[in-house]
């Protein structure tokens, strides 16, 4: 496949590109879903093709072809990438250049014990069918669903600067939820988190999360929520369990620090950022407890790989240090424009999508407390768990989250379950109120498999390690 990619690069250069790279990608996916004890769907997808990127002046041209049958098709895609980039000259900008990276020939494979595609289908079906049968068996549960999802991706990357990198990535994930239906509303509980949790690794991930054994609790909580008290409203202390905090990090930090957004490249759709480069190194993002890193080397985390889709090695980058904004997510072009080192954070959703700045494992470093200690030291607040809805503005400032379940905390104790918990805030004000943070024992590398960005929309896989935390005086219980 290296030769196929090389033909594409050579054709792009011959047509006039100043730089070109190509990725041959063969991505296999499998997804199983069940509802109420019955298998709902088993799907297999295979996306295979070559994507070529050519740089001419101020514009990238990109062309993709699903024809891996002969080298001529790759060459046509290479030439088309360059001719497309040249057409951009009608609306030109400042010329793009690429920050330097080491040129390497290398290979990487996700460490995994059990290839999920080798596990008997019967065993995988039993997991989702049994889990949903258990949940649906509880009176009051109307809909119980469960999913398993697997991806096996091989990439061959070649650049006109001499990169030749082969990667084999394996990802495995699972999720389930129970929905109880009341007269005027529905209540849902999920496990391990809403919309499923994915890690890099093999079927051992599914065994570790053991959906069937958690099914009774999930179902019971969904039913209990129908009769739970409404979430209290007001400025209270907010305690977030780690998967909700992971999404909070994703939306209010991860997207805000994407350099392409900061530079305005995604302004029309995804939006921009409240951050501006002159503030890098001085802007107060949060409290002293706030230490955020983007680390593509964490074992098992979803955005862990060997090299990004520009051939830049995976690395750990400081983003927020002791509450101060110090780093961004970048690619070779955006880093050069900003005068920064490239972070190895450019990835594409398959062969036929243009690589773009993507979060790696953007996580909050653990503290020294624990969830139980946080609850014990809270006079009046709400502990919220598992995301139900998320919304944030185009500058990543004004957010509102809803969670599946909450517990009102008074005088250091959980006093009652509450339903429809929500909270809202402004990013730097919210993070400045972080005052307690659980330790490494409760730090989990949550994976988000459904991050949308770009035009056309690309679905990214991102990681967000986090442990439970407390935020003082947050506006809770927004009901409209």
């Amino acid at each position, binding site marked *: 496949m290296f030769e196929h990619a090389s033909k594409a690069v050579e054709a792009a250069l011959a047509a006039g590109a100043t730089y070109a790279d190509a990725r041959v990608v063969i991505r296999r996916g499998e997804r199983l879903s069940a509802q109420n004890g*019955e298998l709902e769907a088993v799907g297999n997808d295979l996306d*295979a093709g070559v994507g070529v990127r050519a740089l001419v002046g101020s514009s990238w*041209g990109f062309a*993709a072809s*699903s024809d891996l049958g002969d080298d001529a098709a790759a060459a046509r895609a290479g030439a088309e990438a360059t001719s497309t980039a040249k057409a951009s000259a009608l609306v030109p900008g400042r010329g793009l250049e690429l920050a330097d990276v080491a040129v390497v020939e290398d290979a990487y494979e996700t460490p995994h014990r059990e290839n999920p595609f080798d596990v008997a289908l019967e065993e995988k079906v039993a997991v989702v069918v049994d889990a949903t049968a258990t949940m649906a068996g509880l009176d009051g549960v109307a809909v119980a669903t469960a999913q398993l999802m697997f991806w096996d991706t091989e990439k061959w990357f070649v650049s006109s600067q001499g990169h030749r990198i082969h990667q084999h990535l394996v990802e495995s994930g699972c999720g389930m939820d129970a929905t109880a239906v009341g007269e005027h509303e529905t209540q849902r509980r999920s496990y391990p988190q809403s919309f499923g949790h994915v890690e890099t690794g093999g079927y051992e991930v599914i065994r570790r999360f053991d959906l069937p054994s958690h099914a009774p609790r999930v179902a019971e909580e969904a039913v209990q929520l129908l009769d739970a008290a409404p979430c209290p409203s007001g400025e209270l202390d907010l305690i977030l369990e780690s998967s909700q905090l992971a999404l909070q990090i994703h939306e209010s930090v991860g997207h805000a620090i994407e350099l392409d957004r900061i530079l305005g490249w995604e302004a029309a759709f995804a939006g921009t950022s409240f951050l501006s480069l002159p503030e890098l190194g001085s802007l107060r993002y949060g409290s002293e407890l706030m230490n955020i890193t983007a680390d593509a080397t964490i074992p098992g985390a979803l955005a862990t790989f060997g090299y990004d889709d520009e051939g830049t090695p995976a690395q750990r980058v400081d983003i927020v240090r002791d509450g101060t904004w110090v780093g961004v997510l970048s690619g070779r072009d955006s880093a050069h424009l900003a005068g920064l080192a490239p972070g190895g954070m450019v990835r594409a959703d398959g062969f036929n999508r243009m690589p773009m700045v993507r979060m790696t494992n953007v996580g909050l470093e653990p503290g020294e407390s624990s969830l139980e200690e946080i609850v014990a030291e809270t006079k009046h607040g709400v502990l919220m768990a598992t995301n139900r809805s998320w919304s944030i503005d185009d500058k990543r400032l004004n957010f509102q989250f809803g969670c599946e379940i909450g517990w009102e905390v008074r005088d250091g104790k959980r006093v009652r379950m509450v339903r429809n918990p929500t909270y809202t805030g402004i990013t730097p004000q919210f993070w400045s109120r972080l005052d307690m943070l659980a330790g490494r024992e409760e730090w989990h590398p949550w994976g988000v498999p459904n991050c949308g960005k770009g035009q056309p929309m690309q679905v990214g896989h991102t990681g967000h390690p986090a442990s439970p935390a407390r935020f003082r005086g947050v506006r809770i219980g927004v009901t409209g």
Partner: protein
Amino acid sequence: MDHDTTALAQLADDVVALIAERGPATAPGATVEANVRASRSRHGLTRFANSFIHQHVGEDTRTVAFTVAVDGRTASTSTTRVDPASLREAVDTAIASAAEQPVDPHWPGATPPVEVTPRRAFDPATAEGDPARRAEGVRAFVDAAGDLAAAGYLDTEASWEAFASTAGHRAADASTRATVDGIHQTARSAGSAHETSSRLADLDAARSGARAADLARRSEDFVDVEPGAFEVVLAPEAVSTMLTFLAVYGLNAKAHLDGASFAEPGQAQFDPAVTLLDDPTDPRAVGLGFDAEGSPRGGVTLVEGGVTRALAHDRRTAGRTGAATTGGAIPGGEAIGAVPLSLRMPGGSTSPADLVAGVERGLLVTTFNYVRVLEPKSQLATGLTRNGTFLIEDGEVSQAVGNLRFTESFLDALGPGRVLGVGDDDRLADGEFGPGMVTCPSLRLARFTFTGGASG
């Protein structure tokens, strides 16, 4: 580049024949059925930001997707490797996979022959997707504002698809779509514009650029208003977002069967001014003449004069309820259900200016951003305004205001007595879920609840 689908029809036939051949070998004695789609997608996209083109993309992908049923046990496969050897491997794997599973209780059988009339919403020049023509459109959008910073995209897409089933059904069609969608920005504000058509030549990028620039300039000197309940005039993009959520979460037979839908057919759940159709016959509609199950995309009245009349069905939910499919099947829709692919709210007789003229004090909203449903049954949702929000006083736009967060039930917002006017400006509008799905007008609504401003 024309609408010819002969090669794809042959490919779909070949896969059906392959499944018929491999079925007895891979699953001896079993009854093997299948629905097969062979498609080609050619997409060209010109993205611009900071007033220059920074990404220019072309893609040409062929895909074969099929669902096989072995004695009613199903498995679905999609692959871009369409050479004979790869397809044979995919078919063998799918049949073996299906044979290992429990019976799919809702498998409706392979699609039987049914008449499908190709829509042929296809324009050869749009299918060609010349990047220079797209760049010319971007130039016009950018130049329409002069000194403002422009960002957005202009794209062209052509789709060819052939459907074949082991039950003998065949269908084929081709379609094109072109969209210009962009913003102009001042230092403090932005304005947006959107146009979609099946023909690139129908787009007027200069007109869109001028509209976006006008909104951006008029928004620059904004003030913040206190959140609360306001009468509102929503432009088509904002209305489109509401209708999309109502349709996908509520007017969806699977959601209804699951008990998660608000829909109560026969009940007056909306204002009498609300009528919603799934209407691929509208001349502005884009897309193919059949759905992912090969069923004709038929016109269906979902809401009529405020009364919920029908739900969107695929063959699975139709089989479970005794209803007929409405041609709303989407790929992978087993878990999601059917979607009205050409949702339309007919326009009224009032100009957008006259909608504003009727408002004593309220807000004019151009678009919503990042809308998410907090509770599906009540359609309680939150999101923000974007790209031009204005205060209306005494029937006139008096002042630009900062973006606001709303928390509102879409069902309530369009409920009985709440729709005070329907605009005559119905058009294909973008509603956060991609272009070409919703045609709708501006609306004047009696009450919409805003729960926060830019500062919290």
